[in-house]
């Protein structure tokens, strides 16, 4: 049945070469854990992506209940965690996954650094990777405020003060982030929500695409 549907589409659109191109790529011996177990360090990039996919999925589902409003944010988080089936699990996935992304990304960075994979001709991919790192930290920072509990508010207060310490433009960055010159409140929350849910994920997807296209184009770096 599925085969017939596939054949029907393939006959018209010739989709086989598309996924073949994606699926068929060289996996050299020195990055294959089946050959050298120590090659598992080459898995961290893929694991980062895997956790990112979980973050995107669980985040999409969380927004079905979450409300980016200072009156209701905490209440909606409390509700979805304690009164909705599997709420604790789904929020837990997003909460722990957020930390895990950073850990995996850091390990991936270490692997790239110590195998010298950032060297010519792969400098651009390193640069894109660093940008992804920054976007991920931004996602972590903006997401931290969303439950709108005491920890979130005061952590954001500190974070915004740090941003404000940037020379010359610090004060502008602060107002841009908080939405007000003095108050950390209603506008801060809606801004952080928009940044967390729309702006940074869009940037992230673009950067990830660039990251993957480059690695595919250049191939995996050689053995040590």
């Amino acid at each position: 049945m599925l085969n017939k549907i596939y054949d029907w589409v393939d006959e018209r659109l010739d989709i086989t070469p598309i996924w073949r191109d994606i699926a068929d790529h060289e996996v050299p011996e020195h990055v294959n854990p089946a050959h050298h177990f120590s090659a598992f360090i080459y898995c961290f990039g893929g694991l980062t992506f895997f956790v990112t996919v979980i973050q995107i999925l669980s985040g999409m589902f969380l927004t079905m209940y979450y409300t980016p409003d200072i009156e209701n944010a905490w209440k909606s988080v409390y509700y979805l965690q304690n009164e909705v089936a599997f709420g604790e699990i789904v929020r837990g996935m997003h909460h722990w996954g957020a930390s895990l992304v950073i850990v995996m990304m850091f390990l991936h960075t270490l692997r790239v650094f110590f195998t010298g994979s950032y060297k010519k001709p792969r400098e651009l991919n390193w640069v894109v990777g660093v940008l992804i790192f920054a976007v991920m930290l931004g996602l972590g920072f903006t997401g931290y405020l969303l439950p709108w509990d005491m920890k979130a508010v005061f952590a954001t207060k500190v974070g915004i003060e740090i941003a404000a310490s940037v020379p010359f433009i610090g004060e502008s960055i602060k107002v841009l982030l908080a939405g007000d010159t003095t108050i950390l409140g209603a506008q801060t929350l809606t801004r952080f929500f928009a940044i967390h849910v729309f702006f940074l994920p869009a940037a992230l997807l673009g950067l990830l695409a660039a990251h993957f296209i480059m690695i595919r184009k250049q191939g995996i770096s050689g053995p040590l």
Partner: protein
Amino acid sequence: MSNKVSRRQFLSYTLMGVGGFMASGMLMPMVRFAIDPVLQQSGGGDFIPTSQKVDDLTEIPVRVDFTIKDRKDAWYYSDVSNTAWVYKNGDTIIALSPVCKHLGCTVNWGGDETHPDQFFCPCHAGRYMKNGDNVKGTPPTGPLDEYEVKVEGGLLYIGKTVSNTLV
């Protein structure tokens, strides 16, 4: 077709099985989370007191407003006002829901001048007889819902809606 499972088949089945198991383990909590409202038991059924004295009711439907106190809407609690059209049919008290069965607008008794003894919905000119039966040839596809009622201390109490039992 031999019964032997080839190495390639074995691998692809195992990988698909394990992969499917992992993917479903990941997706199941999220899907269950999302469909929770569908599976929630609809609570309620509490009778809500109104200020309508039962002795004042006649055969002519009157509008009775009542308020659901502190209604729980997920994390939001509020007082919600509601309406019933109430009349006496002999000794029994009939309370009809004002929600039109066409697209959910609110009906009025005698709202249409040419049909003073019918319920009328202003949105698309839907009409109902006094017992809630929808007038054929108008948009509604079924009769108005009924409220469960009880009397306590001479006052009318209104419960949850049930489908019309008079038609």
